[in-house]
């Protein structure tokens, strides 16, 4: 940080350069956690959603159960089960997994990923099921086999229908990530809690962090609106 800003900040009681750096580190952690869990969740969710639409109950049944369990219970409980539970797996402390899962970041990442993958699976499944039958028939008439139909017709068409619900899921995930602070991760909320307890200044600490989240949320809303406009540009009324 430039010298004059540091000097100017040092006149503040709470928002000094040091506390702002704490918030910044928290922001980085939050963004990493949310971004990674969303990306991995999406990668997992697409095949699961496709399999969930398969008629065979032995294929779609377990996936239904997975999404039902993860959507029917609070994320906080899932986080607790994974965070406290991993250490209880017999023998894990001797394997290399322990070096990874000893850090609270990775159990939290796993919990968030599993949670968002469950919601995303259902969003994509809903979009796939809603594909107009005519589109599939047309694809069949062109002689496309199942995989090509899926790749060229159904998934792109489903993506357009899913994008709005998925945007909500992304924002939900950003907000849900605040609970990472309860398993000792210093994310944005964690930073705010530390600063609150140091200065006993709840309004300063939490309103500032609320503004940070709000800025992130509105950036996401804006980005998704752009994406939606892009994906749905064929539906725009012709400009006269």
């Amino acid at each position, binding site marked *: 940080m430039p010298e004059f800003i540091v000097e100017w900040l040092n006149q503040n009681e709470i928002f000094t350069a040091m506390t702002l750096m704490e918030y910044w580190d928290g922001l980085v952690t939050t963004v990493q956690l949310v971004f990674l869990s969303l990306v991995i969740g999406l990668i997992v969710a697409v095949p699961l959603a496709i399999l969930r639409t398969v008629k065979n109950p032995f294929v779609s049944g377990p996936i239904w159960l997975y999404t039902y*369990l993860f959507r*029917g*219970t*609070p*994320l*906080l*409980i*899932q986080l*607790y*089960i994974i965070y*406290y*539970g991993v250490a*209880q797996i017999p023998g894990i402390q001797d394997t290399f997994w322990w070096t990874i899962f000893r850090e609270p970041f990775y159990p939290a990442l796993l919990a968030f990923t599993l949670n968002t993958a469950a919601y995303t699976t259902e969003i994509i499944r809903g979009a796939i099921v809603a594909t107009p039958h005519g589109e599939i028939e047309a694809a069949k008439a062109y002689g496309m086999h199942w995989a090509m139909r899926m790749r060229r017709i159904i998934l792109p068409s489903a993506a357009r229908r899913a994008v709005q619900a998925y945007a909500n899921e992304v*924002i939900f995930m*950003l*907000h*849900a*990530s*605040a*609970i990472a*602070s*309860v398993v000792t991760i210093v994310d944005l*909320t964690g930073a*705010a*809690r530390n600063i*609150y307890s140091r200065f*006993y200044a*709840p*309004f300063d600490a*939490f*309103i500032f*962090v*609320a503004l940070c*989240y*709000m800025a992130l*949320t*509105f950036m996401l809303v804006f980005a998704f609106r752009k994406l939606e406009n892009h994906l749905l540009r064929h539906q725009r009324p012709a400009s006269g």
Partner: protein
Amino acid sequence: MFDLKGYGPELAEGALVTVELAFFSLALAIVLGLLGASAKLSGNRFLAGFASTYTTLVRGVPDLVMMLLFYYGGQVGVNMLSDYLWETYDIDFFFQFDPFISGIVTIGLIFGAYMTETFRGAFLAVETGQIEAARAYGFTRWHTFRRVMIPQMLRHALPGIGNNWQVLLKTTALVSIIGLTDMVRVAEEAAKAERMPFHFFIPVAAVYLILTAASELFIKWLDKRAHAGVVQGS
């Protein structure tokens, strides 16, 4: 087979706290939602602006941050107020901001914003012919609202209310973080003390599953009742 190591009664009490919290928050959310939706549709620019600010603010901030702000900030605010009252007016006023009340206020405020959107959509879905008919019968604005708008709006609002309720129920788990002894809190303490996380968290997760599943059935039943007499196009 199902040994809860003596934490059973506490867990049951915690479950009751969760359910109570959820119901009180829902009541507050519905009241705020109706007020918010009425404000948005009132045509009064000041009221509509106020309601939009409220819903935008709430949707931008995580529930946990808001809860922490209300819980810690609420107490500091009350203390300041009580100091001020004592020094200037000699009034002895004190009020302990407990986690239960903070939880209801926060969850109610958050879901009040979502309910505002639900009710707004539902009010807009009521046919204008119905409102015109009420006017033609000489109903006042209030009577139109109460006798025509509300009963007909509920049918459209029900799916939205149901969804919000399901999310609300799961949000109540967060109140354990600010120290309310709901079932999550009890399970956490028990899991730490006994070093058996699965043993305590899985029953709690099961209770949440039962609650959400039961709510789903109840909402379906309500929806069926609300649609009695509606001719559905096939």
